């Protein structure tokens, strides 16, 4: 299953275009039967949030997502994989993260995308700080135990 699929991993400040990223994976290919994409956006938390500031660990962020992506490519018969994570200040309604997986059949694409997001949330070195709509400085978003548990469930299936 290792194949020749080389995951595309990008950490960037600027926005991305979901349609462009999907097209990039599928263009000129007749062997792909399923594409799953997940995009995570910044919520306004009922109007209380003016932005999220995403801090990251340059170097390790790329390396860690590349490790997670390489594992996904080994576990599922994928024909393409893209993972993009933004950093810096992100306003409500804007994109934060994108995962696109392509495979011959839908199950592998769905599962690999799910796995990638679970691991990305609990292993990739990013931290979110809130900026409040009333101008006050918000706190750091706390990690959820549920995210750790979600990542953990992939271990038992080995």
């Amino acid at each position, binding site marked *: 299953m290792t194949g020749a699929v080389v995951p595309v991993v990008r950490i960037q400040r600027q926005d991305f275009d979901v349609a462009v990223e999907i097209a990039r994976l599928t263009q000129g290919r007749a062997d792909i039967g399923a594409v799953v994409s997940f995009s*995570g956006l910044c919520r306004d938390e009922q109007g209380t949030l003016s932005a999220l500031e*995403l*801090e*990251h*660990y340059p*170097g*390790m962020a790329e*390396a*860690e997502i590349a490790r997670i992506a390489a594992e996904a490519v080994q576990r599922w018969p994928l024909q393409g994989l893209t993972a993009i*994570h933004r950093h810096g200040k992100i306003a409500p309604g804007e994109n*934060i*993260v994108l995962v696109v997986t392509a495979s011959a059949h839908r199950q592998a694409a769905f599962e690999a995308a799910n796995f990638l*997001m679970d691991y*990305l*949330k*609990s*292993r*990739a*070195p*990013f*931290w*979110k*700080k809130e900026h409040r709509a009333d101008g006050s400085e918000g706190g*750091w*978003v*706390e*990690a959820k135990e549920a*995210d*750790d548990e979600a990542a953990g469930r992939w271990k038992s299936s080995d």
Partner: protein
Amino acid sequence: MTTRLIYFAWVRERIGMPEEDVDLPAGIETVADLLRWLKSRGEGYEHALQYPDVIRVAINQEHVEHGEKIAGAREIALFPPMTGG
């Protein structure tokens, strides 16, 4: 040997700097030893490392447990649990 320590998110804010180069004293063998030593270096460190169990650590940009030996580490990063995605 000099080791570069890098801090992120509220660990960085509480310690008051993003990174520093330190000469580790003798006897600091594991990540847990390092956290204990750092905590004794002043108020900011004390505040940041009040609950060492929640601190996540990467050696040379790879996640490690607190029992990991730090011999030969060029870069050790300390940060809170990750909240990306």
